[in-house]
């Protein structure tokens, strides 16, 4: 299994996809942090003032917004095998295809730990500099650290979900477009309609919100329940993908 995980890392780091996604996540988190801090305390924006605990928790959770890029990282990691037909030599080298999926889940989870720590570190540094310039840099203690780490955990879990989704759908473009539509269209609609918002807490977006800071949201699960729910979705997709899709013939 260690061999297969290392093979996945070799695959990942011998193309430039990881660099683009990591840089994208870093740019995204810097942008959100700066934007958020700029409007902090602004009466119209409704964002609490710099220096308040609520502001700090919200500002330090902006890293979780990069979840879509981590989702894409996982999706590409799995679906590139089909897109570039490397599934053939990969499955010839490792005939037990379930092992390949498990190796990908492990490899991308571990890589995402590093990437996610980079993202939350950039998140913290950006907020510390900007909020510091506006009066009060958040301390790196207690609740703040917890928020940063839960953001990082959310990102890691989204990469796992991406691998699972990729295993299930196999089609790279379809999986990415489907993931985007789900996260940005389907869930917000469900979240906003009162009749269905009760179900929202059981959905991946609800799990994410439960895990990271919440901002005027509906009723949610506890943070750890949210994390487990998310991870469950990722592993369920991977399991279904292994049983239904990965076993099919590749040419």
């Amino acid at each position, binding site marked *: 299994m260690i*061999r297969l995980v290392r*093979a996945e890392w*070799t*695959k990942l780091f*011998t193309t430039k996809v990881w660099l683009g996604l990591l840089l994208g996540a870093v740019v995204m988190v810097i942008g959100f942090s700066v934007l958020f801090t700029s409007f902090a305390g602004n009466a119209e924006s409704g964002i609490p003032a710099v220096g308040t605990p609520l502001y700090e928790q919200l500002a330090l959770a902006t890293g979780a917004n990069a979840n879509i890029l981590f989702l894409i990282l996982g999706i590409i990691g799995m679906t590139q095998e089909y897109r570039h037909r490397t599934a053939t030599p990969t499955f010839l080298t490792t005939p037990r295809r379930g092992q390949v999926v498990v190796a990908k889940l492990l490899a991308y989870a571990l890589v995402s730990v590093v990437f996610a720590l980079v993202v939350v570190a950039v998140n913290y540094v950006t907020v510390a500099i900007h909020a510091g310039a506006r009066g009060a840099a958040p301390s790196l203690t207690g609740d703040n650290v917890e928020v940063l780490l839960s953001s990082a955990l959310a990102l890691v879990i989204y990469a796992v979900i991406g691998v699972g989704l990729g295993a299930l759908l196999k089609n790279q473009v379809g999986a990415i477009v489907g993931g985007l539509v789900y996260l940005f269209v389907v869930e917000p609609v469900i979240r906003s309609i009162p009749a269905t918002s009760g179900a929202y807490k059981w959905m991946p977006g609800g799990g994410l919100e439960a895990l990271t800071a919440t901002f005027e949201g509906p009723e949610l699960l506890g943070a750890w329940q949210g994390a487990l729910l998310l991870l469950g979705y990722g592993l369920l997709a991977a399991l279904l993908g292994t049983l239904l899709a990965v076993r099919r013939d590749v*040419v």
Partner: protein
Amino acid sequence: MLETAFHPARTGRNHLRVYCRAAGFPLSRADEVLVQVGLADAGNRRAGGYSLGMRQRLALATALLGDPSVLVLDEPANGLDPEGIQWLRGFLRHMAHDQGRTVLVSSHLLSEVEQTVDRVVIVGAGRLVREGSMEQLRSGADGAGTVLVRGPDIDRFAHVLRADGAQVTQEDGTLTVHGSSPADVGRRAFATGVELHELRSRTSGLEEIYFQLTSGSEQFAAPTPTAQEASR
């Protein structure tokens, strides 16, 4: 092998390293097989920029990573230039004869196969049609033991052969001698003092043998295009 299965943005060397990792081989195997297939200089280039022939070589290199005792290749000559085909021919013979590996090649390029292989298995419509060495296939085919002779003084030679009791037919200055061999006919010509310009066994090529063996069982029979259709 026909499938060109690699990520276009990954270099050939890194492509091979991925499978070294997965199979637990040292990474140096990647460089060894690159040298073996003649891609040593192209190993650090993106595989997406490879020519069809280079892709075939990279696919062959991937198959060689595990140092297999049996090599199964599907249409390995596809996309190779004439030099590449000649190289492949030598490479496969080296694999089989000098290193004692089993090399199975499936191909539709019959004249190409004929020059490479030791034994032939002809499969038609999913059934085994014939199996054997090239010589065995030739001897079982129509035209075995038939010798073609050409020369300026062919009429006199035909008389000599007929006098010997050989079965000879003559057409357009070519003698066809049945039930003989080039050695026997040549010996007779030398003894008679007849000038010959051509003396050969009418052996069939693999393509001809193939059609003799599979005639009537073609899977995708299509009408032969007329000259008019073909010129369109």
